[in-house]
């Protein structure tokens, strides 16, 4: 039997009972559609979390102070509370560690900020010009902090767009105006481009001032709250991490790495952790949707078994005129696979529409990836094979004499 003939026979068999075929296909359509939609929601969440982590900067290492330890006492004040990192540490890293493209020591704290009768509470970050490189900051209006303003302790401020909106109104140009941070006047010199970060780490709701100014006029201390280092590429990150750790251990005169008074966080680790969470989430969603796919598959099997019974005489005839067991098996298997593939195609389209609808009406990011479409097709073909095989082999096993006599 030729392939084209097989397809033709299959096509006419499937189209003979359009309503029944349609309803059976519907089960697969819903199954595949929901799998694709669910995976797209999961993958959308994954990519939005990843991009929000990456919006902090790429190939980033963050050095933060460790727990403060009082000699002789067993009380720990908690990680990050120690005042162990200084600007000198940052410049030592800058001059010694290889494979880094930018380094940005930062101090940050929340302050009440006022400007002409409006006020807001926002995060004020003291930084250096490299802050822009490390955090992928680009300017919408005005300019960023310069080396000169750092050395001169200038009271200048760069606003994030959200902060600008809160203080001066949306879309306005506040450059040249004054904001009062912790009762100190700062001149606004620029506004950054919106990065669309959300939640606790909003990259748009921030004020950036020179680090020296922040230390002298705001915190009154010489410590930095973090040193952000951008590695040359993702491959050199672990090497840079090692170099930074070794250098800081030496500078802080600590011989046992477990007692380090700082910690170095690798962005890749954060990404990996976030990915593993969203992967689990995606898998869970897909598994729930998979149940409906399974039910659809059972629907296919049910229909094929009914079909085999109904067409017993036809099977007998086909055998009498020379159809081999293999031909009969192939024919019924092809019918099941054709049904599931049609379901797969429509289901993919449905999933796509659902994903689009979720993004449009629920505002949740979704991503329909090629792999999920391929998965859907693979799964639907596999369902056709698995759930079609039993009815097909039952058809093939019928004795032609019995089948021809069947009423």
């Amino acid at each position, binding site marked *: *039997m*030729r392939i*084209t*003939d097989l397809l033709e*026979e299959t096509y*006419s068999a499937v189209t*003979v009972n359009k309503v029944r075929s349609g309803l059976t296909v519907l089960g697969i359509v819903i199954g595949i559609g929901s799998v694709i939609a669910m995976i797209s929601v999961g993958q959308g969440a994954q990519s939005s979390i990843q991009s929000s982590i990456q919006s902090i900067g790429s190939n980033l290492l963050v050095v933060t102070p460790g727990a403060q330890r009082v000699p002789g006492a067993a009380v720990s004040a908690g990680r990050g509370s120690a005042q162990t990192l200084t600007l000198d540490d940052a410049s030592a890293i800058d001059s010694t560690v290889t494979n880094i493209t930018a380094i940005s020591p930062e101090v940050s704290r929340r302050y009440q900020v006022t400007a002409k009768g409006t006020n807001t509470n926002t995060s004020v970050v003291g930084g250096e010009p490299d802050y822009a490189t490390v955090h992928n900051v680009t300017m919408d209006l005005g300019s960023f902090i310069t080396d000169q303003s750092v050395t001169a302790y200038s009271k200048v401020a760069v606003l994030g767009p959200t902060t600008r909106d809160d203080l001066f109104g949306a879309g306005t140009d506040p450059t040249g105006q004054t904001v009062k941070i912790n009762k100190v006047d700062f001149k606004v010199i620029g506004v950054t481009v919106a990065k669309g970060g959300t939640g606790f780490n909003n990259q748009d709701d921030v004020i950036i001032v020179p680090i020296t100014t922040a230390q002298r006029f705001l915190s009154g201390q010489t410590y930095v709250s973090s040193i952000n280092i951008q590695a040359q590429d993702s491959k050199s990150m672990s090497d840079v991490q090692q170099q930074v750790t070794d250098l800081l251990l030496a500078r802080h005169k600590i011989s046992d790495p477990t007692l380090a008074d700082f910690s170095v966080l690798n962005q890749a680790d954060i990404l990996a952790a976030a990915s593993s969470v969203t992967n689990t989430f995606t898998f869970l969603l897909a598994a729930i949707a998979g149940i409906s796919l399974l039910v659809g598959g059972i629907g296919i099997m049910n229909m094929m078994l009914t079909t085999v019974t109904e067409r017993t*005489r*036809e099977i*007998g*005839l*086909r*055998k*009498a*005129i*020379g*159809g*081999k*067991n*293999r*031909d009969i098996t192939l024919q019924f298997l092809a019918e099941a696979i054709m049904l599931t593939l049609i379901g797969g195609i429509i289901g993919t389209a449905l999933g796509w529409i659902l994903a689009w609808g979720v993004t449009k009406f629920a505002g949740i990011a979704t991503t329909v990836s090629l792999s999920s479409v391929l998965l859907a097709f693979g799964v639907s073909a596999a369902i056709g094979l698995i759930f079609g095989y039993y009815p097909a082999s039952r058809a093939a096993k019928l004795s*032609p*004499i019995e089948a*021809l006599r069947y009423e």
Partner: protein
Amino acid sequence: MIECRNITKTYKNGDMETPVLKGITFTVNNGEYVAIMGPSGSGKSTLMHILGALDTPTLGQYLIDGHDASSLTQDESADFRMKKIGFVFQAFNLLPRATVLRNVALPLIYAGVPKEQREQRAKNALKAAGMDEARFKYLSNQISGGQMQRVAIARALVNNPSLLLADEPTGNLDSKTGEIVLATLEKLNEEGRTIVMITHEPDVAAHAKRIIMLRDGLIVKDEINKDRVISTT
């Protein structure tokens, strides 16, 4: 040439053995028209299954053109049926909702014949079976019973078989349509087709040139139908 050599068929049901055919021997030469008759329970159907290579004998040999069909596997016998035998069933067994032409071309699908050739051969077979060309594209459930049986005959002819095996071909037809179908078979026989027809009706059997009578699994009579042979010569 069709040869049955001492064919026996015994059905086993646990320890019970039921002999149905008890040693059938006969030969059908090319171009013969044979009717096999017998009351129910005579082993007529079982013999038909063996002649159609749908079943194998317990003992004995069955040959068509020297090819032994008595001990074939399922796939081998499917192949044998495809090449050697054309079936005409009492219940026509056409595919509903498929055109007349497609029904007739169906056996050629399993022979792997390309589509254009299939359709050409199906058309020739339909013409040989006396079908009106205007109805080739009709669906098989839109035509009358007599026409259905002609379509079934055309389907049996399409692979140019050595043996046309008709099982009660008029059983589902009224006598008038039955006559038309029998006339079709007669015409085909005159063109040289070898036909074996199973029937329990003497009127129908009277159309054949030779009549074999079965009773209790044995041939009790095997004679030339003088009326037909004399009338045609």
